């Protein structure tokens, strides 16, 4: 097997006496599409927070492109190419849609040091990103004027602005309608075609099943399955976790 892009090993996290994550191991290869599912409270978002540096894991390690990430603050991980979107969209509310995209451009692409985007480059990149997610008409709108799906698209566009190698989409489709889900799915496929690995965290099984090449199941802080989606959803353990005995 070739070198993994993301390698999580023995990851553990507790909140007081509550064990949120217990010895999680996970690998994601470059360009792979991985689905991550699990019942509410199973630790999916905690896992994302530990990988992206928003929370500190007590045990275990996270490697990205072979380098250990332990102790690195979240912004450094984003600059390395590990970007995440938030379950509840967190736009910069006082800024316009375009300005929202400028922030990651200024602080990741420019801050990496190898390229320095000029004012014109910045504007062009913002336009490209808006076109990619289909928000061309909203460039000067404020987040409060956006609909729910536009907000999700902005969240994804902002994540993409950091030019990531791995995108973690934390419930990017929750609360959306059938056709809107297809919209976001198409968008994620498009990003993946550009070579970006995607971890999709989602409750909507239709979306997860059509998107994922591999499916990982978390239950009560433990990984109980990891494999081809069709096999995983039929495995007795997963059925038991979701439906009870």
């Amino acid at each position, binding site marked *: 097997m070739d070198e993994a892009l993301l390698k999580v090993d023995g990851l553990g996290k507790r909140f007081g006496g509550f064990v949120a994550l217990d010895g999680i191991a996970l690998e994601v290869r470059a360009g792979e599409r991985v689905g991550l599912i699990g019942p509410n409270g199973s630790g999916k978002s905690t896992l994302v927070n530990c990988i992206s540096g928003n929370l500190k894991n007590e045990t275990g390690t996270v490697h990205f492109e072979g380098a250990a990430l332990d102790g690195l603050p979240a912004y450094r991980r984003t600059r390395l190419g590990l970007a995440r979107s938030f379950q509840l969209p967190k736009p*910069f509310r006082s800024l316009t849609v375009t300005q929202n995209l400028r922030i990651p451009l200024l602080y990741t692409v420019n*801050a990496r040091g190898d390229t320095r985007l000029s004012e014109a480059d910045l504007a062009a990149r913002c336009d490209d990103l808006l076109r990619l997610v289909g928000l061309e008409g909203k460039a*000067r709108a404020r987040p409060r004027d956006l609909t729910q799906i536009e907000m999700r698209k902005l969240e994804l566009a902002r994540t993409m602005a950091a030019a990531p190698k791995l995108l973690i989409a934390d419930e990017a489709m929750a609360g959306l309608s059938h056709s809107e889900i297809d919209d976001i799915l198409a968008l994620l496929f498009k990003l993946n075609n550009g070579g970006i690995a995607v971890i999709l965290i989602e409750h909507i099984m239709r979306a997860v099943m059509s998107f994922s090449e591999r499916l990982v199941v978390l239950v009560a802080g433990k990984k109980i399955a990891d494999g081809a989606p069709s096999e995983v959803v039929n495995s007795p353990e997963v059925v038991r976790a979701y439906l009870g005995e």
Partner: protein
Amino acid sequence: MRNSTFWLATALSVIAVFAGSRLVSNDYFFFAGYVVLQYIVLATAWNILGGYTGYINFGTSGFFAIGAYAAVVLHKLWGPPIPVAILVGGVLAGLVGLGMGMLTLRLRGVFFAIGTLALAIVVQTLVTNWDFVGGSRGVYIIRPATAPLLGTYIHYLFLIMLVLAGIAIALARSIEHSTLGYGLAAIRDDEQAAEASGVPTLKLKLISTTLSGALMGMAGAPLPYYVTYLDPASGFNLAYAVNAIAMPLIGGMTSWVGPLLGAIFLGIIQQAATVTISSSLNLLFVGVLLVLFVVVAPNGLTGLYRPQRRRREA
């Protein structure tokens, strides 16, 4: 407008205001003008942290007094020219600002605000019990008989504060339109999302608290020479903290224009009230105006014309 052009425009405005002031023969104008200018610096400094970064500082008087007492210490030891005292006061207050920035590691929102208030009280207690700077008795500063450059001391102080105000405004404006300014705005709106977008939030917050604190300290350094008698009750006066918050709120917190307008507006009203009605009534005006603005113009004076512009854009 490019930053260099703006600095130049500010410099020209400073020269113009100063030239205009030479036509005024009444010295009271300079006494009152000094206070208004001092509030322009304080309000602008407060807004770098409060308006741009979203962290409310209730401890303005603490930073201001650090500058003032730094000048007292220097005066007693050596008696350097005021610009030197301003630099030293700025550095000291900036260092304390850096310390305050460390508070943001654990404290957000109202808890940070309470922390800054506590910080000001701690500094006040230290100064009150420090005999060298007069303790609670206060300290007299004997001004030199003549001022450099201008002869009259109050004219000299006015010029110094005018230059400081120009620097503060040009600095605030440069930050606003820079990468730093975007980063601070991201922190103000959502700190987690800012981190996820690659913004080094801690570093930027430290820059913001340090700059803000340093400017406040610089504004305080000429104070002993202005009042000639400084005691903790006047140096740490709550009015500085209240005004430094009220002025950006009334003027508008999103750009450098807000604190400038707010400071001029409130500063002049307060000075006029002090002379015409009573000196103790001034803070009442601040309170009434604050309530009025929260109801009528929640985005301040600068927010009043903005909605129309946005409608035109759409």
